[in-house]
């Protein structure tokens, strides 16, 4: 128990930033809860006489939600730390190490879910709906969503592109499942509970029996390779592509099909909350395709580290190096982007996405790739808080904009302005990246820094 508690403490307070965020989260949740419980009812938004201004009421209402988000983010060290410990010798050596690590992960997800559900339940305190029912419903969905969310973070921390794709599939599920759940409020809780139980049972089985499974899996892999031959390299053969990892874009391009199909499955017959079936609501398909468009671009985050060998061998100036790296990544990104174009139009048409959104969506997806490409190229040292904030803000802007583009009522001029604005931002990022590469310091972007950034 002591080890589980200590691990959880480290997940929430392992870094200074996370410790501060967690502390803010706890204060906001506690303060917001007290305010909602003990202050007079917040009724200004209903036009009733209130002792607070509308702004004050909004702040009090949002306080617990902000706190809850901080607590969720506060535990974001868990996937990276769990991966590090689980893939090290410690899992073999520490007494009951594997079981305690797993228990710490489950307890953390349960704790975060409990905070989220309690926060959600707060808003139903003064309604006739039984609070226990709200908590149970919110807890079930939160547990499933946060489990998937942390799995996403874990897979995204893996360096292999297959890990990123599995992470994406889980991300799509994490995003689509609650949408579907809230879209159909009468949906039974049995499904999410079974999904949760199966997910955790699979995680536990895999994690606890890894020492026994690993040799068997290695033997199977070896016999498979002996029988069918090892996967051969099918890249273009240029040294720059070998070193940057852009030589074979097909696995990523074709691998996107799996998360796309998962998302398409969940989105059949989807109606956004608060909209009638025939009402012009934003179509979520572009949102999911945009998420994928970011991934192919984000691979540039390793470019600076990998370019060190090119600097020694290529006899290029740093400016020339940047130009060649940029070209190599764009040449590689064209393949996944092509697949996304086809998927956007083909599956989008099947999901009855408006033609205008389809047409503008093509440009939007390209802009998404451009933004993430240059954000990745901006990483020329360990990711600091400024770059982290910039990346999060850009991604949020991209997600929100995708919903606007996919809303039939949005005028085309607004869409053009949005896309032009984002494209201009991408160009600014490019200029910034080019400037950073002119002073690229490989002592600041060693492989371990990149690993940390990925984690």
């Amino acid at each position: 128990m002591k080890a589980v508690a200590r691990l959880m403490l480290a997940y929430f307070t392992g870094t200074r930033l996370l410790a501060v965020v967690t502390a803010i989260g706890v204060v906001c949740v506690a303060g917001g809860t007290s305010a909602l419980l003990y202050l007079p009812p917040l009724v200004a938004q209903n036009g009733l006489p209130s002792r607070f201004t509308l702004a004050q009421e909004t702040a009090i209402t949002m306080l617990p939600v902000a706190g809850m988000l901080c607590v969720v983010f506060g535990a974001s060290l868990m996937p990276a730390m769990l991966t590090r410990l689980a893939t090290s010798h410690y899992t073999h050596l520490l007494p009951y190490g594997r079981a305690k690590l797993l228990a710490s992960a489950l307890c953390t997800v349960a704790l975060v879910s409990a905070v989220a559900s309690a926060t959600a339940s707060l808003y139903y305190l003064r309604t006739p709906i039984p609070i226990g029912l709200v908590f149970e419903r919110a807890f079930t969905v939160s547990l499933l969503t946060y489990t998937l969310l942390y799995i996403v973070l874990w897979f995204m921390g893996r360096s292999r592109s297959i890990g990123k794709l599995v992470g994406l599939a889980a991300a799509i599920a994490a995003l689509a499942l609650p949408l579907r759940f809230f879209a159909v409020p009468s949906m039974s809780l049995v499904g999410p509970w079974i999904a949760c139980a199966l997910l955790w049972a699979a995680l536990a089985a895999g994690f606890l029996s890894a020492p026994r499974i690993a040799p068997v899996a290695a033997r199977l892999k070896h016999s498979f390779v002996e029988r069918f031959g090892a996967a051969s390299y099918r890249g273009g053969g240029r040294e720059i592509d070998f070193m940057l990892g852009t030589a074979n874009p097909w696995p990523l391009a074709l691998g996107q099909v799996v998360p796309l199909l998962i998302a398409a499955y969940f989105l059949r017959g989807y109606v956004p909350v608060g909209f009638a079936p025939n009402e012009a609501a934003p179509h979520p398909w572009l949102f999911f395709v945009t998420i994928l468009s970011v991934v192919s671009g984000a691979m540039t985050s390793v470019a600076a580290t990998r370019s060190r060998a090119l600097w020694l061998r290529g006899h290029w100036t740093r400016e020339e190096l940047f130009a060649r790296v940029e070209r190599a990544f764009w040449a590689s990104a064209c393949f996944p982007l092509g697949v996304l174009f086809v998927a956007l139009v083909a599956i989008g048409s099947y999901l009855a996405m408006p033609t205008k959104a389809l047409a503008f969506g093509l440009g939007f997806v390209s802009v998404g790739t451009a933004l993430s490409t240059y954000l990745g190229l901006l990483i020329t040292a360990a990711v600091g808080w400024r770059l982290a904030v910039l990346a999060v803000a850009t991604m949020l802007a991209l997600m929100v904009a995708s919903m606007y583009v996919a809303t039939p009522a949005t005028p085309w001029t607004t869409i053009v302005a949005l896309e032009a604005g984002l494209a201009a931002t991408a160009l600014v990022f490019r200029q910034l990246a080019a400037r950073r590469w002119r002073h690229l310091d490989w002592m600041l972007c060693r492989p371990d820094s990149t690993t940390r950034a990925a984690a």
Partner: protein
Amino acid sequence: MSVPYAAARRLGKAFYGKTVLEDVSFSVEPGDIVGVLGKNGAGKTTLLELMLGFSPPTAGTVEVFGHPSFRLPGAEKARLGFVPQQDELVNQLTAADQIGVIASFYPRWDDELVNALSRTWEVDLRERIKGMSVGQRQKLSILLALGHRPDLLILDEPVASLDPVARRQFLEQIIDVAADGRRAVVFSSHIVSDVERLANKIWIVKDHRLYWQGDFDSLKDSIVRLHIRSARALPDALAVPNALSSQRNGSTATVVVRDWSVELHGELAARLAAEVEVEPLTLEDIFLELHR
């Protein structure tokens, strides 16, 4: 009779038909400080990792504290300490947090020892691990392996990244660990002088086998360099039994032999009608001769 801390019988490991270790038998008793020597790829790390139960053997058995190492019970793991070749620390944490996390897994943790060693080794516990040098990280790894005062401490090339001062301090600490006679240490190293200074037992891994095991004095007595001088030219084939290498130059020859004994000395001198001088070798010389 007490159970040895670690014991292997005809231990072997193969990966996909490729033998990495074969027919290895040994025993580690309390008080033993075993130095494991071998060239790169000889099988040292595999041997240590089989002892630790990281992987099941493909032949024979290896037991730790009387249990098969691959199925070592959780409670017995608290008696085991390990320092890997490459540290496995969590970059984001401070040294104190990393120690706190690892300490929480053990029922007994010697904070006093860890604090004292961190001061002696100049490890700043408030520093974040990602900012530490390779040597500092290695020192922290060693602290983590010593904190629960393990009965059996296994170290895979622990001093490779340490400066000479830290290396000496570390070696002294290892001697302290084993001084009470209740603990045992098994460590591999390429720094032969460290093994010579520290170990009371030596294992030499060669060609995937435990080529030699025993105390240093027996090894020195067993493998020697012979200087043979004769009044006439020596024969082309000296036919010295168990010769590892030989160099002949007319009436003189230099031969390195193993399993040397006084009887062989007399027999050789008589057969060659020569004066045979025996030169004891340092451990480094022995190691080099064995791998010539």
